[in-house]
C-alpha cells in the first residue's frame, strides 16, 4: 500500500493506483479531458499535470503516473497553475469559441475547466484549424472542428462497444476522428460516445438544438427497453421527454446505456393513445372513459371466468401488472400469460428464470456457454459486460446456436440443441472445459426455451449446472437471458398458463375464449382475436390494437412511478418524469376504476400506498430494493429428450423490438441504415 502526501495530506492508496486516483481519494480535484475511469489511459490531453517529488523538475501527467511510496504531490503550486493555463491555451488555439451555438454548452468539460483553470485571454491570433464534419450515422452528430483529440471515443468503440469503428486518420495538427470512409457506426452502444466527448464534437443528432441542459427537469428512473434495467435520467421540458441519459450503477449498466434506451424516447410523442376508443359498426371511434367502461361491461356480461383471458406485454411495471391480475381474478379468470416469446419458463423455482450470476458477476466467471442467446441484441449492456470479462478477466465464451457476431471471440460449437445432452453425457469436448473451469456459467436464451422442447432444454441446463459445478455456496452459474423488462416481475406474479400465448390465441380463434384483455401486449399477431371481444390497454397504437373492440389509453414508462425487476431479479424503482398525454392514465388506476364499473367488487386499493401494501404482501421480496437476490435452487424443467436440430434464432430487429421503439423516427432511421448495410454485405436475416 503506497503512502504518499497530496498537498501536504498523507494518504494510503491501493497498489496500482495512479496519482490521479490517489488525488481523487484525497478529495483533490484534478481536471482532465482524456482520462476516463472506465477506459484505458491515453495520457494525451496533458490537463492533469501535477508536481511530483521525487522526480524531474517539471509537471507530470498524473493519470499515467503510478502512485509510489513517499511521493509528495502538489496540485496547488504556481507551477501547476501555469501548466494548466498553458495546456488550456494550447487546446483553445484550434477550438472554436462557438459555445452559444454548441449543444454541449452548459455541460461542457472544456467550458467548465476553462472557467476554472484557464488564463482568461489568449495570445494566438492566427487562423484556427477547420475540420470537415464526418458522417457517423443517424445518432451521432459531428462538429469536428471542436475536437480536442482526447481519443475517448476511439477507446470506447474498441474497448467497451467491441466494434472498432472510430479511429484517427492523418497526424499531428491534421489528425481527424472519423469512421472508416465515414460509414454509419454499427454498435448498439454508440450513443455513449456523446456522453464521453468532453467537448461538443460528438453530440446527439436527434436532440440537436432542442434544449439547453438548464431548462430541463431531470428525473432519475429505470429503463424498460430491455430486461437489464439500466439506470437512466429522463430529461424533460414541459410535457415532452427531450432526452435520456445513463446514470451510474456499477452492478447493472456501469455508466453506459444502449442506443434504444437513449434514442427511442421520441417514440413517446408519436402514435400515442391519448383517449379511449370503442369499436362501433366495425370502426374504432373516440369515446369517453364512461362509454369505454360501459362497452367492456357489455362485452363481458354473462361470461364465465373461464372464457376470459389476459396477455401481459413486455414493458409493464409491476403495479399495473398486479392490478391487471387482480382485475381478471375478480372476473373469475386465472388465465393470464406473460410469455409473449413462448419460452418455457418454469415458475416453480425462481432460480429457473433469473440471471442468477448477476451482471457484475459475469466478471468473476471464467467460462461462459451461450445457448440460443444473442446477448448483443437482447441485452446490449450485458453483452458489454461479457466483452469486458473476455478482455480483462480471460473469460472464454462458447456458443450453441447460430453463429452471430457478439463483438468478442466465441467458440462455435454448432447449431444443435442436442449438444446439451452430449455435454451432460460427457461426450462433448466442452464438458471437460466446463468441469475444468472454476466459475463456469451457462446462459439460456429465450429463443432456445421457445422451442417445442424448451422445458427439456431448461432441464438440461439445470442438470448441467448441477453436474459441472456451476452451483456452489457463493456461485450460481445458471442464467436465463430475458429481453423484456416486464417479464421477471410477471413471472414472479405467476402469470403463466398451460398452452401459453399460442393456446390463448388458438382458443380465441376456436371460440372457446370470448374475451381477451391485452395489457400492452404488442409482440403477438392479433389476427386470431378477430372474433373475440378484445380490450387493449396500453400506450401506443401498435400491433395489439389491430383487433381491439375497446382501447384504454395508458401511461408509458416515463409517465408513471413503478417497480421493475430486471433480469437478475433486482427490484428497481422508476419515477414519473412527465404526465401521460390527453386522457391516458396509469395502468393500475384504470383497472381500479374499471373494477368498480364491471364488478363484481372494486379492487381493494384506493391509493398507490394501498396497492403497494397488497403488492408487498403478494411478493415480499420487493422490499429488498436494488439487491441482487440469491434465489433458492431446486428442481425445474421437465424430463425429456432434447431433439436434435437447430435453435431457430429468429431475426429480431434490435431497433424495432417494442411499441415505443417502433413509434420512434430515430429508431426507424437506425433500422433502415442497418438493413441497408446487411443487404449490401449479404448478411440479411
Amino acid at each position: 500500500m503506497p503512502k504518499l502526501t497530496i498537498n501536504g495530506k498523507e494518504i494510503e492508496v491501493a497498489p496500482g493506483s495512479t496519482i490521479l486516483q490517489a488525488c481523487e481519494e484525497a478529495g483533490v480535484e484534478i481536471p482532465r479531458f482524456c482520462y476516463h475511469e472506465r477506459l484505458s489511459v491515453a495520457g494525451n490531453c496533458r490537463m492533469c499535470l501535477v508536481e511530483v517529488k521525487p522526480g524531474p523538475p517539471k509537471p507530470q501527467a498524473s493519470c499515467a503516473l503510478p502512485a509510489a511510496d513517499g511521493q509528495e504531490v502538489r496540485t496547488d503550486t504556481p507551477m501547476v497553475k501555469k501548466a494548466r493555463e498553458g495546456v488550456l491555451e494550447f487546446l483553445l488555439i484550434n477550438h472554436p469559441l462557438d459555445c452559444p451555438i454548441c449543444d454541449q454548452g452548459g455541460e461542457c468539460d472544456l467550458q467548465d475547466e476553462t472557467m476554472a483553470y484557464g488564463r482568461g485571454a489568449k495570445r494566438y491570433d492566427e487562423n484556427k484549424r477547420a475540420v470537415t464534419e464526418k458522417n457517423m450515422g443517424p445518432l451521432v452528430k459531428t462538429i469536428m472542428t471542436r475536437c480536442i483529440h482526447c481519443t475517448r471515443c476511439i477507446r470506447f468503440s474498441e474497448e467497451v462497444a467491441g466494434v472498432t469503428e472510430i479511429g484517427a486518420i492523418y497526424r499531428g495538427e491534421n489528425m481527424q476522428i472519423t469512421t472508416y470512409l465515414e460509414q454509419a457506426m454499427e454498435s448498439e452502444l454508440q450513443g455513449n460516445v456523446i456522453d464521453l466527448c468532453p467537448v461538443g464534437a460528438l453530440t446527439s443528432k436527434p436532440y440537436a438544438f432542442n434544449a439547453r441542459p438548464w431548462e430541463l427537469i431531470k428525473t432519475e428512473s429505470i429503463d424498460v427497453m430491455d430486461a437489464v434495467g439500466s439506470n437512466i435520467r429522463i430529461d424533460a421540458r414541459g410535457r415532452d421527454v427531450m432526452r435520456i441519459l445513463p446514470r451510474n450503477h456499477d452492478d447493472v449498466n456501469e455508466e453506459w446505456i444502449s442506443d434504444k434506451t437513449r434514442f427511442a424516447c421520441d417514440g413517446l410523442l408519436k402514435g400515442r393513445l391519448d383517449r379511449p376508443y370503442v369499436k362501433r359498426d366495425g370502426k374504432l371511434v373516440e369515446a369517453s372513459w364512461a362509454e369505454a367502461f360501459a362497452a367492456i361491461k357489455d362485452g363481458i356480461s354473462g361470461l364465465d371466468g373461464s372464457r376470459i383471458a389476459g396477455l401481459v406485454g413486455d414493458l409493464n411495471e409491476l403495479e399495473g401488472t398486479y392490478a391487471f391480475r387482480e382485475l381478471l381474478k375478480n372476473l373469475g379468470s386465472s388465465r393470464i400469460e406473460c410469455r409473449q416469446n413462448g419460452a418455457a419458463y418454469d415458475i416453480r423455482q425462481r432460480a429457473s428464470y433469473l440471471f442468477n450470476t448477476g451482471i457484475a458477476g459475469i466478471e468473476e466467471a471464467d467460462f461462459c456457454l451461450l445457448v440460443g442467446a444473442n446477448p448483443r441484441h437482447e441485452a446490449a449492456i450485458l453483452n458489454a459486460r461479457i466483452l469486458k470479462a473476455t478482455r480483462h478477466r480471460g473469460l472464454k465464451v462458447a456458443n450453441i446456436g447460430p453463429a452471430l457476431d457478439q463483438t468478442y471471440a466465441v467458440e462455435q460449437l454448432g447449431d444443435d440443441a442436442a449438444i446439451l445432452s452430449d455435454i451432460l453425457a460427457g461426450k462433448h469436448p466442452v464438458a471437460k472445459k466446463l468441469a475444468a473451469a472454476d466459475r463456469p456459467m451457462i446462459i439460456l436464451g429465450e429463443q432456445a426455451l421457445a422451442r417445442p422442447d424448451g422445458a427439456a432444454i431448461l432441464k438440461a441446463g439445470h442438470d448441467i449446472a448441477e453436474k459441472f459445478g456451476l452451483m456452489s455456496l457463493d456461485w450460481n452459474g445458471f442464467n436465463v437471458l430475458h429481453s423484456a423488462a416486464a417479464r421477471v416481475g410477471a413471472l414472479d406474479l405467476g402469470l403463466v398458463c398451460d398452452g401459453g400465448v399460442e393456446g390463448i390465441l388458438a382458443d380465441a380463434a376456436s371460440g372457446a375464449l370470448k374475451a381477451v384483455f391485452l395489457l400492452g401486449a404488442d409482440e403477438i399477431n392479433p389476427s386470431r382475436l378477430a372474433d373475440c371481444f378484445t380490450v387493449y390497454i396500453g400506450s401506443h397504437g401498435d400491433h395489439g390494437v389491430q383487433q381491439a373492440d375497446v382501447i384504454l389509453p395508458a401511461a408509458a414508462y416515463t409517465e408513471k412511478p413503478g417497480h421493475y425487476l430486471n433480469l437478475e431479479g433486482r427490484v428497481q424503482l422508476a419515477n414519473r418524469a412527465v404526465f401521460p398525454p390527453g386522457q391516458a392514465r396509469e395502468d393500475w388506476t384504470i383497472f381500479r376504476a374499471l373494477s368498480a364499473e364491471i364488478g363484481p367488487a372494486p379492487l381493494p386499493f384506493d391509493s398507490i400506498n394501498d396497492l403497494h401494501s397488497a403488492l408487498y404482501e403478494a411478493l415480499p421480496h420487493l422490499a429488498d430494493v436494488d439487491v441482487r437476490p440469491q434465489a433458492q435452487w431446486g428442481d425445474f424443467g421437465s424430463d425429456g429428450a432434447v431433439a436434435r436440430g437447430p435453435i431457430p434464432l429468429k431475426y429480431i430487429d434490435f431497433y424495432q423490438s417494442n411499441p415505443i421503439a417502433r413509434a420512434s423516427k430515430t429508431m426507424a432511421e437506425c433500422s433502415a441504415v442497418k438493413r441497408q448495410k446487411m443487404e449490401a454485405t449479404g448478411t440479411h436475416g
Partner: protein
Amino acid sequence: MLNVIESGGAFNFSDENQEKIKTILAKYPDGRQRSAVMPLLYLAQAQNGGWVSSEAVEKIAEILSLPRIQVIEVATFYTMFNLKPIGRYHVQLCGTTPCWLRGSDEVMRACKDMGLEKGKSTDDMLFHLTEVECLGACCNAPMVQINDDFYEDLDYDRMTAILKALKRGEVPPPGPQNGRQASAPEGGPLVLRDMVPAAADKE
C-alpha cells in the same frame, strides 16, 4: 465528405505477393500478425502502380483480421503511402538543407520546366512530383528518388536529361550523375593515394 482514399476496383494480391505475405507474416510472433500492416500496405502499393486503393485496405484488413479503420489510420499516418492514383514515375525531390545548399532549387526548376508540378501528377500520368525531407544521401546532394532508385549529384541539365529519358521510355542508370563512383570524392581519391597505384601515377 472528406476524400481520404480512392477506390481502384477489385483488388487481390498476386500469387507471387501471396507467397511474400506468407513470409512476412511468419516474421511476427503468434497473435501479433497485425504488425504486418505496414509491409502489406507497401506490397499492395507496389502491386497497384504506386498507390493503395480502398479495396486494398479492405483486403489487408481481412488478411490481418484488423478493423478497417485501423488500417486506414496507419495508411494516412505515413506520407509514403499514396492513397490516390499517381503518375508512373514518382519523383521525390529532396529539399532539405544539404540538398538545398547544393542546388535543389535548380533541380526543382528542371522539373517545373518539364511540366511537373509539386504535389501533382502530370496529365499523361507519367510523372508525379513530391518535395520530401532528407532521404539520407546528403553526400551526393542534390538528389531525387524516382520510384525505388536514387539519382544523385544533379543539376538542371542532368535532371532534365533524366526526365527526358524516362519520357522516351528509357531507364537512365541510377546513382551519381556526374561520373563519380558512389560517394567517393569527385576526381578520384584525395587521401591514402599511395595505396591506389593508379591514383599515385596521376600525380
